[in-house]
């Protein structure tokens, strides 16, 4: 894997270089990665880069795979989001499962390369396909599938669209076996899950990135899994409420954490710097859009100018920015 520059797991990767770099490539990580590769026979037949074989232990018992800064495609097989797992003395919790059953199976193999403890929980930080379609690979473990109490509704109403779109984007072979699995445990109040000598705290959030964002905290290492409440490098995508998201980020910024794991971005970052580029991006859109609404401008006009000062600060800006402005406009015009 060392000859693939895309997987170089060291060094700052955000444009501002913030918050990353505390966990370099250790001998243990290399060993783990090799083990994961060795345990994935499928790998020989899949494109070499569409594989979750680079999980890295970012803190004791916490392993993170980093997704690519891309839109789903046959080449990446849907591997565009971070996926993690936490190992306790009695069991394992998976936090997001990547974008296909195949990737979920590779993540499962990576877990099995580290531990044979039972996989008790599969937690989805929110509804988006690049975080949930790997769930199918864990059905055999009969875990609790865990999510925000609004996750079931969100997935239920989007199921057909998500299935069709993602199969089309990554191809039916790479997508084979993927399915929407609804949560068996819905989180409405802050809730702790016990993995044996370590607890995870699950906190459902008000509408922000989506209407079903869940923050997962490993209390033992004070590691926050923010899901897509935190984007780094990959431009944020608004599928909930820009106002709500800005508020949630303000609240997260007050927290102390040893590290945070973004939904898209490097494996770990640090508070509060990790939040700054995203806060700047969302504020730029909100400020510009509010100004244009006050001036009586239209949605079309706003989509041509609002937030374009951020263009060079993000990857995939052209793919998602106008959409973000559209969502922001439709929300903020009701203030």
């Amino acid at each position: 894997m060392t000859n693939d520059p895309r997987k170089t797991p060291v060094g700052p990767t955000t444009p501002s270089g913030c918050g990353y770099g505390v966990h370099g490539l250790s001998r243990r990580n290399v060993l783990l990665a090799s083990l994961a590769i060795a345990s994935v026979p499928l790998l020989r037949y899949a494109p070499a880069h569409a594989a979750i074989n680079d999980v890295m232990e970012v803190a004791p018992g916490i392993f993170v795979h980093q997704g690519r800064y891309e839109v789903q495609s046959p080449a990446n097989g849907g591997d565009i989001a971070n996926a993690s797992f936490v190992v306790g003395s009695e069991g394992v919790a998976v936090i997001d499962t990547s974008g296909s059953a195949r990737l979920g199976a590779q993540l499962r193999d990576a877990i099995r390369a580290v531990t044979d403890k039972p996989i008790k929980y599969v937690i989805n930080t929110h509804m988006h396909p690049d975080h949930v379609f790997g769930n199918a690979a864990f059905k055999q473990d009969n875990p609790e599938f865990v999510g925000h109490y609004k996750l079931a509704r969100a997935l239920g109403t989007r199921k057909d669209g998500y299935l069709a779109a993602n199969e089309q984007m990554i191809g039916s072979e790479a997508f084979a076996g993927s399915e929407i699995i609804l949560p068996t445990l819905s989180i409405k109040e802050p809730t702790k899950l016990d993995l044996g000598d370590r607890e995870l705290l699950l906190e459902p959030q008000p509408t922000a990135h989506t209407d079903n964002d869940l923050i997962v905290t490993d209390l033992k290492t004070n590691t926050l899994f923010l899901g897509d409440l935190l984007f780094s490098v990959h431009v944020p995508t608004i599928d909930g409420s820009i106002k709500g998201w800005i508020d949630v980020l303000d609240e997260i910024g007050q927290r102390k954490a040893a590290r945070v794991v973004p939904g898209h971005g490097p494996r770990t970052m640090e508070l509060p710097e990790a939040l700054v580029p995203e806060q700047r991006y969302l504020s730029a859109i909100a400020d510009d859009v509010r100004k244009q609404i006050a001036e009586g401008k239209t949605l079309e006009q706003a989509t041509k100018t609002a937030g374009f000062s951020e263009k060079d600060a993000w990857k995939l800006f052209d793919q998602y920015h106008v959409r973000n402005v559209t969502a922001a406009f439709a929300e903020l015009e009701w203030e």
Partner: protein
Amino acid sequence: MTIAFAKLSRTICGAVLAAGIGVLATAPAHADEDLWPLLREQAFGDRPISEESGFVVLETPQKVEDAAIVPITVRIPPHVRDQLKSLSIFIDKNPDPKVATLNFGPAAGAGGERSFSTRVRVDNFSHARAVLELEDGSLHMATKFLSAAGGCAAMQAKDPDADMTGLGKTVVRTFSPALSSNPIWSGQVMIKHPNHNGMQLDINTAKFIPARYVKEVKVERDGELVFTLDSTFSISTNPNFRFTFGKGDNNELDVSVVDTDGVAFEGMSKRPSGS
């Protein structure tokens, strides 16, 4: 809404985007099936329709970013001096292809560029059409192709709970022209309404969320009719209309709205600022 109807919708949403929150997909194989002759006959019989004759211009985004909120604008250039009778907007492949029909009244105005803008849902790769009827009964059409699709996902609310909050709130604004001699003013109506299409399955009840959408909007200026608008669920959540009207004495707009549940809402403009 019947199951069969929902099924129909699903079968025609083969080109969904909505992966993550969506990027463009390619056209489905049956995208070139032409539904217009049928729609045309239903709406206008065998009346002749002039196409791209310069009487009406339809503006759509070059690249549709969010199929749930696609801004479209219909312009009637200033050289068209006739009074307007009606304007019909179609999206051929939407579950209900007739997006909106406006029937204009005496306060619709003349003597400058007239326009109508709204935001629509686009279910599939499709032609969008604006058919303008002038006072003399002549029909004029402009057509654009919308190369994006939201499939069923275009119909999903980002925050269904928030969408039901404040239902019926109707905001009305007027914008005076830069030149006070201009006989055409513009106005805006925003209606807080989810515009449910009846195609979403509520997984808690295993039933479809009943369709409920804005059905009719009537706009009057100083008591005279600007237009009545027959609307469908092809209009986006929180229906939003920008339009022109003829300058009057006070330029105050009164708006009445009725949805498919028969519930009525009202709104009125404040006096325009500066007057």
